[in-house]
């Protein structure tokens, strides 16, 4: 494996876990899988407690991103960037549950680096296209993730309002790209861009060097310490070999990457919300006003209980979505529950953060206090890949709930 050399020394437990997962696949022992996932999470937690300094997020107080190429290499050394990457290219080939276990810890520890957006989601393309004509390209990309030296960003979301979508046309030099695309995350850490454009009325996947398109970017810091960019191209020429794939397979890969991204982001939001509530509960237990701990006031207690309930719902929803994925249920059923899970996790994390800021009183409004960092990160993670409201609409559409329901239908026909 390409990455084995540098990583085994640093993260032996991770590789042990990886082996456990693979052997488990043979006898699908539910409990054992749960234990192993928990162990994976614990390992990630232990690493991040040690290595992730929340302090660096304070740069957002002055509008600057907190992204750190060195920390990205540390994450690579943990093996997380190749966790979903195919084994043939040196990846771990682990499932989405394992990715979610890591993502939950990334959320809990406020990691701003784009593990989900720029490592886990690209892995879906690698899985689907690895046996494609240009297999060598995927191997090169995998090598970049192995040590964190080179990373992809994805550019496939619709253009911002009022701008034309990205179109590719054939030319003598290769392709001419024209139009806008939004939603690129943390471009400062990405050397290459995987861009979806319409070519001959079908989606096509291009690989571009970010250096070449830097003048065409508008980049802004986001509240989780990362960045978001819009790309506007007007007659940009890409070479012929930039085309990685073309046709319905690109559509499918994009949808699959989005769905996995939603699951992992839900996990990240869940970790964020759990950590925010823990921080707040600790404060409520100790901080006194009017001669008693403020956590003894009913108003605080009840609001805390409501956050707890929402987080538990979020965890249940995510697990149900992962189970549908694992059981191979219909695409619609998977997509629906994924949307529900992302919606609930977004709402729950924001509610946890908002309650946390309020419960911390004036202290909660200082940039110095961690609780605000959770709220800010939750705002951004909720927006990523579609916010709670959009996800709920998607749930309704996937479930066909706007179809008329006959008066004699039974309750069990109404919802899963």
């Amino acid at each position, binding site marked *: 494996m390409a990455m084995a050399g540098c990583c085994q020394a640093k993260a032996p437990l991770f590789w042990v876990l990886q082996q456990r997962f693979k052997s488990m696949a043979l006898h699908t022992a539910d*409990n054992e899988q749960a234990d192993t996932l928990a162990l994976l999470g614990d390992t990630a937690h232990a690493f991040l407690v040690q290595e992730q300094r929340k302090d660096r997020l304070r740069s957002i107080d002055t509008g600057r991103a907190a992204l750190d190429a060195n920390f990205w290499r540390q994450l690579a050394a943990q093996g997380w960037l190749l966790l979903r990457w195919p084994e043939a290219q040196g990846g771990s080939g682990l499932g989405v549950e394992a990715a979610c276990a890591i993502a939950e810890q990334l959320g809990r520890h406020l990691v701003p680096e784009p593990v989900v957006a720029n490592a886990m989601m690209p892995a879906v393309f690698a899985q689907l296209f690895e046996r494609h004509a240009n297999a060598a390209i995927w191997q090169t990309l995998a090598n970049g993730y192995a040590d964190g030296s080179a990373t992809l960003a994805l550019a496939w979301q619709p253009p911002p309002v009022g701008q034309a979508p990205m179109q590719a046309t054939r030319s003598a030099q290769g392709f001419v790209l024209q139009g806008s695309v939004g939603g690129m995350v943390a471009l400062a850490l990405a050397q290459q861009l995987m861009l979806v454009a319409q070519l001959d009325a079908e989606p096509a996947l291009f690989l571009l060097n970010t250096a070449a398109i830097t003048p065409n970017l508008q980049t802004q810091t986001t509240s989780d310490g990362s960045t978001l960019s819009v790309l506007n191209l007007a007659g940009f020429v890409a070479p012929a070999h930039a085309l990685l794939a073309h046709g319905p397979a690109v559509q499918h890969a994009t949808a699959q990457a989005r769905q996995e991204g939603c699951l992992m982001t839900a996990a990240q939001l869940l970790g964020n919300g759990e950590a925010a509530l823990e921080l707040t509960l600790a404060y409520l*237990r100790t901080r006194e006003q009017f001669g008693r701990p403020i956590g003894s006031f009913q108003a605080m207690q009840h609001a805390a209980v409501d956050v707890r*309930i929402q987080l*538990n719902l979020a965890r249940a929803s995510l697990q149900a979505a992962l189970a549908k994925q694992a059981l191979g249920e219909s695409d619609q059923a998977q997509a629906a529950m994924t949307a529900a899970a992302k919606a609930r996790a977004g709402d729950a994390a924001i509610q946890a953060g908002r309650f946390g800021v309020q419960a911390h009183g004036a202290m909660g409004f200082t940039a110095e206090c961690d609780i605000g960092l959770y709220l800010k990160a939750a705002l951004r993670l909720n927006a990523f890949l579609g916010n709670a409201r959009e996800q709920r609409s998607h749930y309704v559409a996937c479930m066909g709930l706007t179809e008329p329901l006959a008066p004699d239908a039974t309750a069990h026909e109404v919802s899963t």
Partner: protein
Amino acid sequence: MNSTPNHNSLDDDAFRHAWRSWIQANYHSPLRDPLERLTGQPARAWLQAQHRDGWRAPALPAEHGGMGLSLRKQLIYQEELERFSVARPMDMGLRLLTPVLLRYGTKEQIARFLPGILNTTEVWCQGYSEPGAGSDLANLKMRGHEQGEHLILNGQKTWTTMASDSDWIFLLVRTSQEAKRQQGITFVLADLRSPGIEIRPIRTLARDENFCEVFFDSVAVPKCQIIGQAGDGWAVGKALLGFERFSHGSPELLRHAFKVLRQTASALQILEQPHYHQVLAQHACDVADASAWYEQLCETAMQGGDAHEDFSMLKLFNAELVQRIAESATELAADAGGLLGAAPQWGLPHDLEWLYMISRPLTIFGGTAQVQRNLIATRSLALPRS
């Protein structure tokens, strides 16, 4: 009864199929709504038919005359009842009293009372609530004093579900005054035909009389009808509340209310209206997530895990969610809101006012939503008591 099939030997799907067919063939009531109560003779007939054909008491071990189902089959048993939207029969003898009898009762007590519960010749009701002791159960006032071989009961119970439809009552009474209010309470069984008992129905906002006040005027009860030790009733009663709470997280009512919402919108032909879309999307995800949570908690419980606190939270969420769905359904009715009864001529296939009102006590009975939040805050979140 004699030819009870061994349901545990069936695989899950076969069991499900057999039970589903049996329900279809044997449930004769027109009531197809989990919020409705099956009462009187139809309720007895329904439970007696179950007993006749070996479908009675899914959780009760076979040596006591039950089906002794695995936990997974118990869940299937319940799912199929819900799928058919069977109305709830009055069955507190099995659901609430039997676990207490088996845990705290003597062999004689079990032999005397269990058969009547199983063959539904004796229908039981529960006497916990009193006018002054709602959320604060330790505040109960009803007295029992010893007189020879009897306990003499004086006082009042209230919110006794279906007392007027029952034969026996199990209840908590105060048999001595102790410094700690939880002490000196006794769990006792009483025949409702005993002299000195008067039952008066309570009419509710939901326009029914399913609850009663039960007055006790020097009612003599043999001491052999005390369960556990005299004065230990708090522990016995708490255990019973524990059994009861387990079933409260079921998404049955949610699904029913959500169905009412969708059928109302369909009949009103407002499926395309923007406000409906928002409401539908929110409630649909609420129901989906609560159902997912419930299934996972049942799974945990089946594997022997402790999901007690989670069930409490889910119960609270579900109760408030049913209320919100009922409120949304009423809002859909627009100008025609507030009609008593279903109103097909207005495009309202369901009685929405009833749904609105029947969902009110979900956040009151069994501990108000406020008291439940207090308990969760101190127990699950380790916040300091107020």
